[in-house]
């Protein structure tokens, strides 16, 4: 029976995996080895600042066996969403690591690097031309917001990957990518059903996260055939079950039954999940509906200020009972002590009380008074200097804040460290999370070629 096998190294390049799992995958003679390196999960900072959540040493450790072994086996290696955010600095960060590994191990190959940054002006023009659709629950995008963004990337679909592979790339390194594009591009190009290919890719993009025990930090084998696909964890001790694979199908997406991809929608409501052997699950019945209009998802981050924070413990009944009053008093004191020239708009102060309601805030349902609280005092301001200054005033005001019934007159806070205050750098937010109408995906995501 005709089939195509693909190996997913792990759920995020840098999280680690078992090299023996990758070796098992290569022994299955795959047509492609893929790795997803990015996500919006860690927040807008990494996209905005162009830095990587995952450190160089982590990427080096994960990429070295993948590159060396894929080259030895002559199997194309595809890395999507390089450096987490997928912006140009992120992409070049991973490219340099890749080149260092190639030099160190004397590897020679054809590398395609696909760029995913979209100029702010192009996005602003698309806003003006009404070619922008917000993602569900995303706030509106304006021309001003697009222009003020620190960086905007587009999530490429399967087409640029398919093009790079068709042109003979041994290694494809891509900026921000749809997770599915990494794994679905080749099967779709070879004529396999796009619904099955995209559904398989959706499961593969998290490595062995669909397995038991689940592990984003291990490898998975996907095998696609004419009317079904199969997934199998590549570590002997892991298995897939129909439940584990089906549950992963609905992971971290808004709709459990429909996958929305640039190529179209995959309806999984009639998908069947069957156990084939101890480790393997077979999936069939996913239906593909091609899109009428190519739309690419944009992600943009904008710098909104600088952060400083401190963490302190509170182990006094009366302080804990008076937290809301202390907060109000600290805000008033900070305002009074700040220079007259510091405007209301130039800084914000926030408090979170761990042990009370820090995670859920106003939606916390448990209101039993805790015996101990961890308080984070946070300042976000127009400059680091101002954030540090505001925090310093807030910290000392909180420490010595008087309140009715106070007995702890020597200090309200227990600091775990000296210095107590952290200058935490730039604060970003997602300025763009919108779809843009696109005519030519290959033009939007330009490709460089080099021979190493």
């Amino acid at each position, binding site marked *: 029976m005709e089939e195509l096998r693909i190996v997913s190294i792990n759920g995020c390049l840098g999280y680690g995996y078992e090299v023996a799992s990758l070796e098992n995958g290569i022994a299955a003679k795959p047509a492609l080895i893929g790795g997803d390196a990015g996500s*919006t999960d860690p*927040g807008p900072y990494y996209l905005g600042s162009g830095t990587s959540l995952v450190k160089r040493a982590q990427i080096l450790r994960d990429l070295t066996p993948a590159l060396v072994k894929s080259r030895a086996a002559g199997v194309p290696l595809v890395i999507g969403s390089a450096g987490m955010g997928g912006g140009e600095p992120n992409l070049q960060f991973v490219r340099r690591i890749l080149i260092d590994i190639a030099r160190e191990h004397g590897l020679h190959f054809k590398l395609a690097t696909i760029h995913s940054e979209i100029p702010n002006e192009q996005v602003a023009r698309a806003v003006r031309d009404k070619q922008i659709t917000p993602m569900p*629950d995303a706030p509106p995008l304006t021309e001003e917001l697009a222009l003020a963004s620190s960086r905007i990337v587009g999530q490429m679909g399967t087409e640029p990957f398919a093009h790079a592979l068709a042109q003979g790339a041994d290694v494809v390194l891509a900026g921000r990518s749809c997770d599915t594009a990494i794994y679905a591009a080749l099967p779709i190009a070879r004529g396999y059903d796009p619904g099955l290919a995209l559904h398989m890719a959706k499961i593969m993009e998290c490595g062995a996260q669909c397995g038991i025990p689940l592990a984003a930090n291990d490898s998975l084998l996907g095998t696609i055939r004419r009317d079904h696909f199969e997934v199998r964890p590549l570590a002997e001790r892991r298995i897939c079950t129909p439940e584990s694979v089906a*549950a992963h199908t609905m992971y971290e997406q808004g709709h*459990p039954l429909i996958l929305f991809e640039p190529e179209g929608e995959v309806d999984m409501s009639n998908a069947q999940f069957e156990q084939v052997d101890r480790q393997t699950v077979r999936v069939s019945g996913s239906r593909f509906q091609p899109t009428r209009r190519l739309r690419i998802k944009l992600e943009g981050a904008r710098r909104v200020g600088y952060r400083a924070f401190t963490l302190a413990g509170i182990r006094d009944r009366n302080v804990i009972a008076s937290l809301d009053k202390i907060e109000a008093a600290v805000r008033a004191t900070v305002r009074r002590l700040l220079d007259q020239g510091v405007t209301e708009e130039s800084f914000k102060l926030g408090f979170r009380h761990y042990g009370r309601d820090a995670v859920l805030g106003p939606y916390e349902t448990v209101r039993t008074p805790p015996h101990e609280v961890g308080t984070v005092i946070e300042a976000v301001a127009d400059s680091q200097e101002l954030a540090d200054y505001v925090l310093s005033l807030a910290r000392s005001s909180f420490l010595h804040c008087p309140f009715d019934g106070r007995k702890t007159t020597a200090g309200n806070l227990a600091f775990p460290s000296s210095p107590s205050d952290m200058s935490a750098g730039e604060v970003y937010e*997602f300025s763009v999370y919108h779809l843009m109408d696109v005519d030519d995906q290959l033009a939007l995501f330009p490709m460089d070629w080099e021979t190493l």
Partner: protein
Amino acid sequence: MARLEDLASVLRSKNAGPFQITIDVLFEDEATYRRVRDSAAMTPAAIAPLYGVPGQLVNVIPFDRVRAIKITFPRQSGERGSGSAFDRDVYGAQQHGPLAEVEIP
């Protein structure tokens, strides 16, 4: 009556992108799944106030084949999406609490 967290085998929350929180509730057996799925506690109108969002923005979608219910609604934490200033849960991984305590008849 039983609390949802005692009936579910998986109860997890996560970002579905920077502006939505999605909660997956999975069940081991068909009877429990149907009991929860068909309960008035699992309607958008019942869930909306737990998270301070309007009912029409809450989606409750059952996935019968895997005995799962997915609940998706706009993220309230942070000034503009996940990881923005004063966010409480960047990955959205700890937002299932209010739902966990819902009593199911």
